[in-house]
């Protein structure tokens, strides 16, 4: 892949999938600055990994794999901010005022996000993929779990979320 091919491919990916990637990063993090860091990390890995992408899976499956794998093992770089986050865990994730917040300041979504945050990491991943309206097959390709197992898991996650939101 030559340089401009890579750049064009990357721009196409960004154009088509940046919101999905952003939402997954958003679901994994508690604070705004973290979403930015995580999103940039995913973009960096996507850019670096593009050379090795052989097209065995669709570009979206590939991108979601990179996103999910990065989110799962992502660690905050700043120790001080970890402490701050733990102290302020109970506070709402959104700072009202900005236009971005106005878009997402929906009570229903906030409640859902807070419930998702309480799931374990793998269930959180699957819940976020369901919200992206992915099929069982796609989730199976991303996580490596078999489809039947995913069916059972999704059922359980939905019940758990329902309980957490009541």
């Amino acid at each position: 892949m030559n340089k401009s091919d890579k750049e064009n491919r990357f721009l196409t990916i960004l154009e088509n999938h940046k919101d999905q990637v952003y939402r997954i990063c958003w679901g994994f993090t508690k604070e705004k600055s973290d979403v930015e860091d995580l999103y940039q990390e995913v973009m960096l890995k996507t850019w670096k990994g593009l050379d090795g992408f052989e097209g065995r899976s669709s570009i979206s499956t590939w991108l979601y794999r990179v996103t999910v794998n990065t989110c799962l093992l992502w660690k905050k770089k700043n120790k001080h901010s970890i402490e701050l986050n733990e102290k302020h865990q109970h506070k709402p994730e959104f700072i009202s005022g900005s236009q971005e917040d106005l878009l997402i300041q929906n009570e229903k979504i906030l409640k859902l996000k807070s419930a998702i945050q309480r799931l374990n990491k793998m269930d959180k991943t699957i819940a976020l993929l369901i919200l992206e309206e992915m099929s069982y097959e796609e989730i199976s390709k991303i996580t490596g779990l078999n489809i039947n197992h995913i069916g059972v898991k999704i059922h359980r996650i939905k019940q758990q979320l329902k309980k957490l939101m009541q």
Partner: protein
Amino acid sequence: MTFLDDFGSDWKNIKHQDSGIGNEKFSLDNHQVLDKLIASEKRGQKLVRTGMVMGIIGLTIGLGSVLYFSQSLQIIIGAIICIFAICYMIYQSRKLKIDINYQEKSTIDFLKYSKEKLQTRLKLANRSGWIYVFILCIGMTIINHAIFESTDSTPMLVFQFALPFVIGVVTMISVIISNKKIQRKQYDPIISEIEELLQELKSQ
């Protein structure tokens, strides 16, 4: 319609902002993101290139001076062995890096790969370190032999031969101790987290 499907449209209203809306930090458009990535990549490449040029200059000057001043075949052989040891170490350290392409495997494969890599990485690094020290010591011993072969004093000879090995072993012991610390403080928590994630994946 099932639970969660109700949230679909609202959920999709959460968007990555660009065109300068909202938070300034998220006002980058796609081209700006790309430019940032290319700039960081170029910085990395520049550093590698500078390192390589400096290495080649150092190697040429070092080897050239040895050749010029000694004109001894034994010293040249010793220097070549030392250079080989350095090249071996560079090769091994590159091999120990986590393969970026594994990031795109399925989560299960990626987690298993990361776990295995983290478990074996420092062991391999230590083993490579010992091999490096051993080769380097042989090279230095050959050089020392050429320099001190005219010395009559036996203790001096023993000292000169033993010195590279003593330095090498002491260095390696301190490296192993610090690697153990890294394993305990950095890698072990990640490994337990990965095990937990794998367990969560398996659970129904």
